[in-house]
């Protein structure tokens, strides 16, 4: 019921706002980059709306419960990516006149194989990013409504693909900008309400965390997925229908879909692959995954992956192409830093409160739902229900906005770069891609959303980040070097992902470097690109191709250009026929 109240308005508003952008979508450029008429403020709201995915809205607070205060470095890296984008990429990339990242690669280096490779990379990154969005949509809806998982996935897919197929980027722009404001309000207001409502004891506990070793009250825990608990002593718990269930010491496997009520005062069982929240390691503001003993390196690895990855995320780059010129693209990046900084002040509040109020979520591995689980813990009445509905609505808006952008780059990569086609093909590709993602998301309920998204960032950091930075700032880059570098980055990160999934368990330094390959994969990609480029010779035009990106666009309008408005080509380079037409028609 809550889900219905929360999700229906979001879906309707999304479709309504989306339809406002439907007018005048007639060319590929209209569809993919909204005719390049989006102002910096609107665009930065849309960039932020698209970027604040489930990982930001729910994931960071969940990671705080699971991994500790160090998880607050993730939002820092997410925001730092836009500072790097502003400094290195935004304006020159917009000036290339490209529509997609593969387009940019071809415009700068004139290589069709590179374009195809870049398009495949786009599909890899978007796949890693899109599947967890749909998965989390399904999970959150199933938690608040007790409905099946697949319903949420299908609802998300239908809304996203209809909005996009009909309205393209213009619809996506309005929807994402609107959803940014929506998410900001729905994140900040409940946070303040929670802080005021919880009472002084909880506020005190939130900043003086103690390790979660004993249940303070009778605590029901829903195990949505199969979990293995480790018990030091025998324990008697109660099942959902009230029958007592004795558990012997040792390992105990909880079947999927069971609810167990742990009695007050009972010791908290251990979970394989996790430490109880609140311990001394939990309180350290650094990231030390797998207890490898290298907290600084672990934190740096996350910062490198998120910061450089943001710079290479194809759906974010595509949003910058909707700016009218390089200067507004740069301003968009600058405003985005400010907007994200406001939003990211709040996940820490949810995280520390969730540690006090719902620490048992770490047992079932459902820390992603910590944010939506909080209001009902604070207020069991109707006010709590209203705030649960508000947060669910915000979370659903987060999936929608991000999925819109990702689905658009998938469609662009397939039917603009791999097999160029017209507008009808683009619309069809959107729907087909959404169907494929639903099929991929249905069996992925067990995968950790945060891990998949971080891999998406890592792949982007090791492929598109070096391609863009060197393409814009180094005129000696050759097509062969770019292909070798992108391939090396892709192979390195894919190898590390495969090792994590199927390889033997490792520990210590190797564990960090395999789970977070960014610290070595990004330098590897840069080095390969530079090395192979230096072996070859850049073509004669490469200096001009690079410098062109730094040249400010001519103003199309204004007193100095009064005689031939709307023409971008310089007077000296027009054909005689064009000059004659301008003489006759131009005023």
């Amino acid at each position, binding site marked *: 019921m809550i889900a219905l109240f929360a999700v229906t308005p979001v879906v309707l508003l999304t479709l309504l706002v989306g339809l406002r952008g439907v*007018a005048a979508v007639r060319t590929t450029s209209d569809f993919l980059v909204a005719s390049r008429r989006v102002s910096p403020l609107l665009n930065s709201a849309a960039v932020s709306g698209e970027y604040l995915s489930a990982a930001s809205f729910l994931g960071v607070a969940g990671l705080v419960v699971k991994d500790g205060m160090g998880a607050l470095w993730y939002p820092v890296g997410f925001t730092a990516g836009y500072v790097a984008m502003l400094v290195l990429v935004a304006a020159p990339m917009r000036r290339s006149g490209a529509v997609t990242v593969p387009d940019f690669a071809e415009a700068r280096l004139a290589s069709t194989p590179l374009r195809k490779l870049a398009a495949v990379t786009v599909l890899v990154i978007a796949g890693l990013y899109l599947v967890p969005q749909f998965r989390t949509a399904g999970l959150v809806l199933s938690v608040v409504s007790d409905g099946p998982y697949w319903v949420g996935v299908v609802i998300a897919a239908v809304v996203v693909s209809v909005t996009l197929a009909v309205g393209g980027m213009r619809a996506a722009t309005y929807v994402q900008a609107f959803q940014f404001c929506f998410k900001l309000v729905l994140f900040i207001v409940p946070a303040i309400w929670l802080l005021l409502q919880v009472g002084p004891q909880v506020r*005190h506990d939130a*900043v003086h965390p103690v390790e979660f070793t004993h249940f303070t009250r009778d605590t029901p825990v829903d195990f949505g997925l199969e979990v293995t608990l480790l018990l030091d002593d025998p324990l008697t718990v109660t099942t959902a229908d009230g029958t007592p269930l004795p558990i012997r010491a040792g390992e105990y496997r909880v079947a999927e879909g069971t609810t167990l009520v742990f009695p007050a005062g009972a010791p908290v069982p251990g979970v394989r692959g996790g430490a109880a929240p609140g311990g001394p390691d939990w309180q350290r503001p650094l990231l030390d995954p797998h207890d490898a003993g290298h907290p600084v390196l672990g934190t740096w690895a996350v910062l490198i992956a998120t910061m450089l990855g943001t710079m290479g995320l194809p759906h974010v780059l595509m949003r910058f192409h909707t700016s009218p010129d390089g200067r507004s693209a740069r301003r968009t990046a600058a405003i985005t830093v400010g907007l994200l*900084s406001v939003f990211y002040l709040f996940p820490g509040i949810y995280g520390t409160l969730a540690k006090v109020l719902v620490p048992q979520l770490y047992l079932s591995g459902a820390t992603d739902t910590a944010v939506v689980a909080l209001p009902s813990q604070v207020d069991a009445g109707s006010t709590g229900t209203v705030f649960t509905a508000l947060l669910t609505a915000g979370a659903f808006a987060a999936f929608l906005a991000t999925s819109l952008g990702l689905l658009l780059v998938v469609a662009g990569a397939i039917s603009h770069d791999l097999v*160029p086609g*017209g507008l009808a093909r683009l619309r069809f590709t959107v729907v087909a891609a959404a169907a494929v993602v639903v099929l991929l998301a249905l069996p992925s309920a067990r995968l950790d959303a945060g891990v998949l998204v971080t891999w998406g960032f890592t792949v982007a950091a090791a492929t598109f980040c070096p391609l863009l930075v060197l393409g814009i700032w180094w005129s000696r880059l050759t097509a062969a070097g770019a292909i070798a570098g992108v391939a090396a980055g892709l192979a390195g990160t894919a190898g590390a992902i495969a090792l994590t999934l199927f390889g033997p368990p490792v520990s210590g330094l190797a564990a960090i470097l395999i789970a977070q390959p960014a610290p070595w994969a990004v330098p590897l990609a840069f080095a390969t690109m530079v090395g192979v480029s230096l072996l070859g010779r850049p073509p004669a035009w490469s200096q001009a191709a690079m410098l062109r990106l*730094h040249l400010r666009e001519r103003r199309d309008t204004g007193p100095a250009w009064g005689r031939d408005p709307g023409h971008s080509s310089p007077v000296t380079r027009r054909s005689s026929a064009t000059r004659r037409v301008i003489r006759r028609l131009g005023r």
Partner: protein
Amino acid sequence: MSPHRRVVVTSPQTRLAHARRRSRAAWRAPTLDPVEARQAQRVYRAQRAPALMALGALGVLLFGLPVLLDLLPAWDNVRLLGIPLSWIAIVAVPFPAMVAISHWQLRRAERAEEPE
């Protein structure tokens, strides 16, 4: 019928052409006029210095702060308004600093682009 109704003004042929598959135009080597090339070279050089400075500041901030927090575990016990100082440091320091860096960089980059 509302007064602001939009009507299609492209000819049917244009719409057909837009909908059809297009072979993309052959790639042409980019050229710059000598004047433009000189100006672009100047802008490129002028942009490089502030870009490196902004990146340097960002790097020191992001990679220095974890080292500082690792070296100063005592900050976990120093409290400001009841909140551990090290928790405040990862929220209240990076975000305002990044807003300041991007504001500064935006102004420098736009000034570098102004024609002489």
